[in-house]
């Protein structure tokens, strides 16, 4: 990865922290291949599948989102991202009874430049927990995520206010992350 890309990603993250959803989506899409490389390398080593790795990727994305306030705008972004990815990988491996402590993320850095192919795997874990959310939150998350409609359209479809849609989305994502974390813990 070039330093230039990292600078651009940091700029996107600053915009995202100020509420820019477009920059945020661009950043998360750009980060995902990196997260996928880390997760796959870690999962492969202990005999887990690409679908398991994709679960870890989704968990990591949620963690990045919910903990984005811990990133300092004047600091490089990749050490922060990698630390979160490693943390979520270790968590996931431990949960599956693998010895996560042995994962050394530093030797993953060489594969980070090579982005793995885009993944179209439908992952079970997040979807499964989506069904455990309260109906209000589930409908909002589903509309925004799977149907891909805007906050405003979601509000119209579900006859909610936009503010209520935002709150439901935020709580839904936080609960999703919590369920994933607590599963099997």
């Amino acid at each position, binding site marked *: 990865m070039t330093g230039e890309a990292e600078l651009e990603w940091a700029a996107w993250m600053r915009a995202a922290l*100020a509420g820019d*959803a477009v920059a945020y989506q661009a950043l998360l899409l750009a980060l995902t291949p990196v997260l996928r490389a880390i997760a796959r390398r870690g999962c492969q080593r202990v005999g887990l599948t690409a679908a398991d790795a994709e679960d870890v*990727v989704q968990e990591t994305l949620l963690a990045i989102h919910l903990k984005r*306030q*811990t*990133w*300092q705008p004047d600091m490089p972004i990749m050490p*922060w991202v990698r630390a*979160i990815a490693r943390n979520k990988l270790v968590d996931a491996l431990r949960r599956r009874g693998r010895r996560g402590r042995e994962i050394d993320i530093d030797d993953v850095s060489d594969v980070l430049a090579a982005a793995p192919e885009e993944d179209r795997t439908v992952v079970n874990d997040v979807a499964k927990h989506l069904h455990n959310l309260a109906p209000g939150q589930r409908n909002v998350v589903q509309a925004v*995520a799977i149907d891909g409609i805007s906050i405003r359209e979601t509000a119209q479809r579900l006859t909610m206010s936009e503010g209520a849609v935002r709150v439901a989305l935020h709580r839904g994502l936080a609960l999703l992350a919590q369920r994933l974390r607590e599963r099997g813990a």
Partner: protein
Amino acid sequence: MKTDDLIRAIAQDAAPSGLRPQARLALALAGGVAAAAILFLLLLGPRGDAVASLDQLRFLLKFAVTLVLAVAAIGLVLRLIQPGASAGVWRGVLLLAPGLLLIGIAGELMALPEARWLPALVGVNARVCLTYIPLMGLAPLGLILFALRGGAPARPALAGAVAGLIAGGISAALYAAHCPDDSPLFVATWYTLAIAMLVALGALIGRRLLRW
């Protein structure tokens, strides 16, 4: 759900959310110090000669050690809850507290005849120390741990333990103004034990509360 779908949902939730961890910790510290100070004034209060003792090195050392401990632990915990940050200089600053105490002990051992070492260590107030430092540290510890939930520590129990050090440092600095025992030998023994209780409690709670 496909990963791209999840990303779309997350991006729509970009709206700024909540205070930064540093701001949360600052609020918790303000509240914690206030709560501990009120408890201190209600239950103990400064000793009669507290102001007159300000020219005594042994008395001042108690504040130096406990306040350095609290400040260093604050710096360290802010690093611990930030993914990818290294402890930096804060681990070294933290070691300043026991370092200062060791210098004090060396001076005390040189100043006192051997026969008075043990009485100085045992002191007169050990039970009060072991009761009130943990007790006055509870409110700061709780508030700090709650504030740290906004962070993302790689090691939640460790972050909780360092939160215990902060609370212990604050509480012990207040208690130092009350306690008639000024010997570094007393401080090294009983303050350490009392603060260790808060550290253990912090680690125990942090292990669960600070997971993310």
